[in-house]
């Protein structure tokens, strides 16, 4: 596993245009605790060059949010070749796909992240797997947040999972400072934010520092 245990990370997800993403990455302070996520829309719009073009401008750890649902071998190979350190697979994907995904990530020397978006009981999925992924992501989607305002992030699942499986925990879908604090309080290892980093502004650098302060 490339990511280190006993460290807390801020994952900044880039979901706008590739130019915007590159500009944001250039403004970020360098920290080993910042992970750069090449978001799903970027990968679908630009293909693997979204990853490789960001790769050449930063030494940071890159997460390719491929949201693999099938054909795991292809996804992992593509992501590793493009220079990412981690890829994501959907927890709702067939169990065969998740198993292949975890196995291939290990072979390729990158970290496996399983995204539990729209999974009621992540524990039940994890029990079915041959091996645990390096990271499990507790995730409330953007559309869910936008159209069902009362949907909560199930923070209680963090400890439930950590107590039963040898895996790190990431929380995605809560962009407010209070939500970040709650994630940390509940034992998250990684917190994913995107809203404040959708566009590059003069505050990009300070915002990243501010979030980083909360993540300890």
């Amino acid at each position: 596993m490339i990511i280190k245990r006993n460290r807390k990370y801020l994952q900044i997800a880039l979901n706008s245009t590739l130019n915007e993403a590159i500009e944001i990455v250039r403004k970020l302070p360098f920290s080993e605790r910042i992970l750069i996520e090449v978001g799903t829309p970027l990968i679908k719009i630009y293909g693997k060059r979204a990853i490789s073009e960001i790769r050449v401008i930063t030494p940071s750890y890159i997460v390719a949010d491929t949201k693999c649902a099938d054909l795991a071998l292809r996804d992992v190979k593509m992501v590793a070749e493009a220079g990412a350190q981690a890829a994501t697979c959907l927890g709702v994907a067939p169990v065969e796909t998740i198993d292949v995904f975890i196995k291939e990530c290990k072979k390729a020397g990158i970290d496996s992240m399983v995204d539990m978006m729209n999974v009621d009981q992540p524990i039940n999925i994890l029990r079915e797997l041959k091996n645990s992924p390096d990271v499990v992501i507790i995730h409330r989607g953007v559309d869910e947040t936008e159209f069902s305002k009362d949907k909560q992030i199930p923070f209680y699942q963090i400890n439930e999972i950590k107590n039963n499986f040898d895996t790190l925990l990431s929380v995605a879908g809560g962009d407010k400072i209070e939500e970040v604090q709650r994630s940390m309080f509940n034992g998250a290892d990684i917190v994913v934010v995107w809203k404040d980093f959708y566009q590059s502004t003069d505050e990009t650098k300070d915002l990243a520092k501010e979030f980083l302060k909360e993540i300890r």
Partner: protein
Amino acid sequence: MIERNKKYLQIAFNRSLNEVATMVGLLPLSDRIIIEAGYPLIKTYGVDVINSIRGFWRQKFFGPEDSKSGMKNFKLEMLGLAEFRDLLLKKDSFKKIFQEKKIEDKTVAINLYIVADLKCMDRAFTEVEAAKNAGASAATCLGLAPVETIDAFIKKCEEIKIDSFLDMLNVEYPFEVLSKLKSLPKIVMLHRGVDEGEGNREKEVPYHQIERIKGTYDDILIAIAGGETAREAITGGFNDADIVIVWKLFNENPGKIAELTEEFLEKTK
């Protein structure tokens, strides 16, 4: 657009762009062919791969000299079928194809129908828009996605006039998903995943669901995916599916693509 009471063959392309170009070049000019820009292809090249595929198809009509003559930017949509046919007949290269294949003008697909296999899971508005801008005729959303995403996906597809495919990969009860939606997708895809098929031979293509869904929802068309043999493809066609999706068979026999397509089109007339 897709018509009822017709059987379509959807060919999913998952390999390199070079191979796609070659294979598109070999396909017969039928309006019962749907091309799917596969999920790995989109992730590798980006959605613009759809524009490229459309370009390969147009080359079948106009030949590779298009860019020089300015034909590349020609708006085919603006022409009626008869005008288009006349235009084509002026070109010797097409005249030959026209005569050899005895193509009736009504079966010629002028604008290729291309499905962007996005497997949308979130951010439906952004993804659907990107697909449409790249020239897709339809896009896919996962039945496993949050219901908010599926609703947003279908709404956006209706708004910008592309067809919505709902992919039921790994969904045990498609009915349950459909009953929660604000409006129905145009096409439901019944699916056995590639990894599922390889890791677990016992998992069957869910043919039995076709009749059940069609019996309950009049307006939904069914696409069936996951079959790997010619027999399975034809079975899908005979099981009342409107669209049969194939990939392995074609991707593994690139040289035989024309033959296999014609065999399918002939048998499912």
